C-alpha cells in the first residue's frame, strides 16, 4: 500500500480525532501492560497526538486507562477507556512501541501503516520459551554465589530454580492466577533447595534455600512504582507497589510452607 506523503516527503499522519483516540487507547493499553512507566506512557502518547496536530490527556489507573483526545481550543473531545492487558513484562514490545511513536512523530509512517504496525507488534510471538528455564536457573545459581553460597548450594539452587520455573511456565500457559502460581513455585523451589541442608551436602544450606526463590521477586513493578512516585503518579505507583507486595507475600508464604514441611530452621 502506498504511503500518504506531504510536500516535504514525510508521511501524513492525519487521522480523525475519533480514530486517533481509538488508536491511542490501544497503544497506551499495550505499552502500559508490557512494563512501561507512566512518564514514558505520557510522553509517547503526547508525541503521537502532537504529530496529528491534536492533544491527548491520560488518566492512568492500576487496571484501566482513560484517554481524551481534543484539539488545542477544546472544540471537541473524544474519550476512550482501555483495560490493562494481563501479559508479562516485555521490553522488546516496549522498545518497538516507543520506536513506533518516534516513527509517527518523525513522519516515517502514516496512520494506516501505524495501525498495521501496532497490530503486528502486539500479536508478535513473545519469543522462545524453551531456553528460559535454563537461563533463569543459571542466573539464580550465579546469584547464590554472589550471596556467598558454595558450589553445592549453586547446584541445588540451579535444580530448584529450573523445576520452579518450568512449573511457573506451565501454570502461566493454563492461565492460573499469578499469586497462586508464585505460592506453588516458591514452595516447590524451597522444598528442593532444602535438600542441601537435610542431606548435609554443602556448608551454606541457608543461602541455598534463601536464594532459591529469588527468581520470583517482582523487581520491575518495584522499580516502576518508584519511577511513578518521582513523576507524581501516586495512584499508579501505589497500585504497582501493592501488586509487588502481594506477590512478595505469596513468595514468602510458599517459602515458609516449604521450610515448615521440610522442618528447616532459619537460624
Amino acid at each position, binding site marked *: 500500500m502506498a504511503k500518504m506523503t506531504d510536500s516535504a516527503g514525510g508521511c501524513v499522519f492525519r487521522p480523525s480525532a475519533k480514530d486517533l483516540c481509538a488508536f491511542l487507547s490501544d497503544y497506551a493499553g499495550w505499552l502500559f501492560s508490557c512494563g512501561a512507566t507512566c512518564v514514558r506512557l505520557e510522553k509517547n502518547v503526547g508525541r503521537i497526538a502532537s504529530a496529528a496536530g491534536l492533544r491527548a490527556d491520560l488518566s492512568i489507573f492500576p487496571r484501566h486507562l482513560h484517554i481524551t483526545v481534543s484539539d488545542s481550543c477544546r472544540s471537541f473531545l473524544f474519550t476512550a477507556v482501555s483495560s490493562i492487558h494481563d501479559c*508479562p513484562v516485555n521490553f522488546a514490545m*516496549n522498545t518497538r512501541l516507543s520506536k513506533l511513536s518516534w516513527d509517527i512523530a518523525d513522519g516515517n509512517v502514516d496512520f494506516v501503516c501505524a495501525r498495521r504496525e501496532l497490530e503486528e507488534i502486539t500479536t508478535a510471538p513473545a519469543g522462545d520459551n524453551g531456553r528460559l528455564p535454563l537461563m533463569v536457573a543459571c*542466573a539464580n545459581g550465579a546469584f547464590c554465589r554472589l550471596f556467598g553460597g558454595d558450589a553445592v548450594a549453586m547446584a541445588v539452587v540451579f535444580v530448584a530454580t529450573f523445576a520452579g520455573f518450568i512449573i511457573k511456565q506451565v501454570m502461566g500457559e493454563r492461565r492460573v492466577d499469578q499469586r497462586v502460581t508464585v505460592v506453588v513455585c516458591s514452595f516447590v523451589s524451597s522444598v528442593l533447595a532444602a535438600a542441601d541442608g537435610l542431606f548435609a551436602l554443602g556448608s551454606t544450606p541457608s543461602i541455598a534455600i534463601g536464594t532459591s526463590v529469588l527468581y520470583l521477586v517482582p*523487581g520491575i513493578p518495584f522499580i516502576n512504582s518508584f519511577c511513578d512516585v518521582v513523576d507524581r503518579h501516586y495512584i499508579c505507583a501505589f497500585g504497582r507497589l501493592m501488586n509487588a507486595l502481594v506477590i512478595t507475600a505469596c513468595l514468602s508464604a510458599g517459602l515458609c510452607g516449604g521450610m515448615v514441611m521440610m522442618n528447616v530452621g532459619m537460624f
Partner: protein
Amino acid sequence: MFWQFFQDALFAAIAAIGFAAISRPPRRAYLFCAVIAAAGHSVRFMLMHSAGGGWHIVPATAAASVVIGILAVLVSPKTKVPAEAYLYPALLPMIPGVYAYRTFGALVMCLYNGGEASFSHYFYLFASNGLTCFFILLVMVVGATVPIFMMKKISFQATRHNSSL
C-alpha cells in the same frame, strides 16, 4: 582480592543475562545488561572492600546504583532500547536477598518464641535485617532511576530512529 573481584563481576553478569531474559529485552540488549551489571556490582565490591575498612553496604549500593543508572541512560541511545530495560537485570544482583530472608525468618521466630528474652533477640534480628534490607532497596531504586530523570532528553529519545544523540 583480584580473583574475588573478577568472580564478583562474572557472576553478576551471568545473573543479569539470565534475569534479563524473563523481561524479554531485544537481543542486542543482553551484552550491555551483563556489562552494566558487572560494572555496578564491581563498584559496590570495590567500595565495600576498599582500604580503611570499606564502605557500609547502603552507601556502597547507592553509589553502584547511580553508576548503573548513568550507564543505562548512556547506552540506551546506542542500542535504541529504553534505559529501563537495562536497569532491572543490572540491579538484581544487588538485591538484598539474604537480608530479606533473615528478616522474614526472624519475624516467624518472633511469633514462635513467646519468652521475653528470645522474643527480644529475634525482634532485634528482624529490625536490624529489615532496616538494612529496606534501605538497600530504597537507595538501589533511587540511585538507578534518578539519572533517567536527570537526563530526560537522552532517556526518552533512545528509541528514535534518526536520533542524533
